């Protein structure tokens, strides 16, 4: 067999990578959802509702964006919801004690990031499977938060701080700006930095990545720290929106965030996915739930629908990638 004659497949003239193709399908799905909901309900296509959908999607997106990088490395972070609880309660306390929203915000972000670094150290240095490490962390964080809050609620924050969650700028909610900012930053980080490229390489084959001279441990710690920090961001926005902190705040958000990442086309095996995909995934999930509300479908059906969408999206994805 000669080397030169050994080309197994020919190059198509117009080449769309599998990733771009899969992303277009998702955008199409989101578009169709919008059209369908506009036709089926009067309330959907109103400025108020659209802004509401975007604001809801933003909270989900903060968590899911951090998770995306973790999942890109082939890991999972189950502690993000519990992390929101701890970070929000800590931020709330600091605001109450010092009266400074800035210090409170820094405390919340710092706590989230610190939890992430702990996760990263467990995964990278102790080689504990991320699923186990972050699952354990989930319980530890719940424990700390519940003990600290002792069933109490902290509420009533300065109006300036509450703007982060419920304010508007030029008629658009502040969290939506934050979402766009993190979408751009996350996309640039993943697609246009050496570190981002190395994260894809780690997820695609961790053994080969290490033997290619990529500092795998440091990148893993970075990724979990980022995921923790994004939980911190979500906690601040959540806190500002709710104007109160409780021990179980954020508890129900981990699984929807994972759903958004999976609907967005990331593979739990690592190496495949994008922050933009996750953004579309968060949008699709929020649209569906919003649509069900508008159509007055019993809220009990929402988890069922979420589950079906996740499995369906992953199935489509695998099918699409298999025919190469």
């Amino acid at each position: 067999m000669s080397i030169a004659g050994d080309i197994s497949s020919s190059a198509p003239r117009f080449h769309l990578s599998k990733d771009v193709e899969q992303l277009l399908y998702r955008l199409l799905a989101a578009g169709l959802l919008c059209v369908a909901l506009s036709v089926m309900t009067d309330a959907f296509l109103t400025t108020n509702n659209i802004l509401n959908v975007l604001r809801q999607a933003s909270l989900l997106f903060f968590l899911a964006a951090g998770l995306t990088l973790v999942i890109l490395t082939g890991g999972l972070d189950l502690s993000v919801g519990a992390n929101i609880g701890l970070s929000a309660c800590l931020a709330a306390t600091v605001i109450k004690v010092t009266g400074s929203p800035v210090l409170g915000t820094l405390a919340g972000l710092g706590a989230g990031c610190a939890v992430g670094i702990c996760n990263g150290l467990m995964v990278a240095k102790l080689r504990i499977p991320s699923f186990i490490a972050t699952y354990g962390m989930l319980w530890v964080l719940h424990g700390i938060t519940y003990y600290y809050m002792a069933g109490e609620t902290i509420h009533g924050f300065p109006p300036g701080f509450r703007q982060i969650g419920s304010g508007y700028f030029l008629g658009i909610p502040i969290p939506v700006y934050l979402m766009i900012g993190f979408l751009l930053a996350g996309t640039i980080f993943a697609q246009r930095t050496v570190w981002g490229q190395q994260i894809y390489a780690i997820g695609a084959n961790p053994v080969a990545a290490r033997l290619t001279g990529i500092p795998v441990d440091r990148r893993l710690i970075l990724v979990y720290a980022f995921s923790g920090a994004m939980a911190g961001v979500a906690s601040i926005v959540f806190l500002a929106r709710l104007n109160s902190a409780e021990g179980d705040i954020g508890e129900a958000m981990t699984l929807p965030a994972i759903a958004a990442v999976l609907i967005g086309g990331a593979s739990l095996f690592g190496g495949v996915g994008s922050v933009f995909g996750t953004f579309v995934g968060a949008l699709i999930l929020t649209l569906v739930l919003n649509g069900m509300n508008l159509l007055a479908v019993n809220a009990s059906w929402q988890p069922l629908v979420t589950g079906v969408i996740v499995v369906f999206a992953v199935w489509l994805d695998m099918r699409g990638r298999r025919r190469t």
Partner: protein
Amino acid sequence: MRAVMERTPRLELAAPFPASGAPLLELKGISKSFPGVKALDDVSFAVWPGEVHMLLGENGAGKSSLMKILCGAYQADQGEYVHEGKRVEIRSPADARRLGIAVIFQEFSLVPHLDIAQNIFLGREFASKIPGLVDRRRLYREAKAVLDLVGLDMDPRTKVHSLGVAQQQMVEIAKALSQEARILVMDEPTAALSDRETERLFEVMRQLQAKGVAIVYISHRMAEVFALGDRITVLRDGRLVGRALPGETSPDELVRMMVGRNVDMTYPRRFATEPGAVVLEVTGMSARNGIRDIDLKVRAGEIVGLCGLVGSGRTEVARAIFGADEVTAGEVRIFGRRQTGGPDAAAVAGVGLIPESRKSEGLALIRTVGENLAVAGLPRLFPNMLFSPGRARRTAEELIARMRIATPSPNQSVAVLSGGNQQKVVIGKWLAAGTRLFIFDEPTRGIDVGAKSEIFALIDQLVAEGAAVLMISSEQAEIVHVCDRAYVMRGKRIVGELSRADLSEENIVRMGMHHE
């Protein structure tokens, strides 16, 4: 290859069959091919009752393939399988077992958390009178009887994980005997045994022999070959190259038969006349992976071979130098600077590893050719840490052109390339990283002949441009033809160095074999 056969004296091939008696088992004219390799080519092999038949050959000579055909794990493409004078079809290991053929591989097949008796009769438990239950009394009674047969004085209720290697070996043999094995195949059974345990094993083998069991014994130890063997068969490159009786041959002659010469393998290259500066210097290195007291040096412009049998510690040395396995003593210096830290530090210092298992350790198979080519060189190509897809693509295209990688574009999935082209991608990623010391671990494994010479041309070009190369290969011919010098390993240590003048397959095999 013809030349090899013609040079081999016909006498050896025709010689020693016993004058009388029919063979217990005969393989006639066996051929077996795998994609890209002919593993066995017209090999005939026979065993008689009560003999120990030694099977010799270098790594990749075809011993394992022949044994796998013997025990039904592989099916021959051509050839006959004759059992006690009758032609039989062997389609599965179960077929072979019914004929009384049992194989004890180097890696045992025992289940650690079951006891000895349960292991011996695994899958063949005696049914109790109550349906669905096992007759435990009979299980342990029968197990005890088989253990007595091999002389292992132990309670059959002992869990296997608490046994030593030799005892596990005995349990494997007991298991084989309980299946009424009449032909026992043992693959380097003494590799992990102490002298006393080895003695014990030999004693059991002699008892089995006396009972008429035929033993096929694969070994790399000359002393065993002459102490135990009744007959010797030598394979090389998938062909039968000789048969001999221990009394009528010598270790030197056997080594010559094993090595031969690969007439069609020539790698023209200019050998280093004046080696450059020392690039790699390893002194007294021991590592957690088992290697001990390694000393070696590689200079710029030099290709240095690292040879020895599989398992002698070659890959471990490569991994320790690269920082992939922890060094516990001694030091590694790259360009005079002491090296600590992992593969990332080694890569920064200019070292690149081209690992043995290309697909699992060298490439990200779900990614493209371009992504794989750029991945090691990212920090060098983009010193300000901002990645540019355009620049990465141009780098990949340059490498594809320069290394003549057969791919329609950098966007092609690397998984669909042939072995040779995948290997070029692995080498290419280190070129992009500006690597100065290349460590090749079996660079031509699974690569067809045409691509092999291209890989060697590339390696030659690397050293011509001043890079240093450390090359591991199980194919002695490659080492001899390509390397300026070579180190030989045995038992996790370097046991010798061969200069260009002394570099021959005979010398490598002689140094690498056990001569106790």
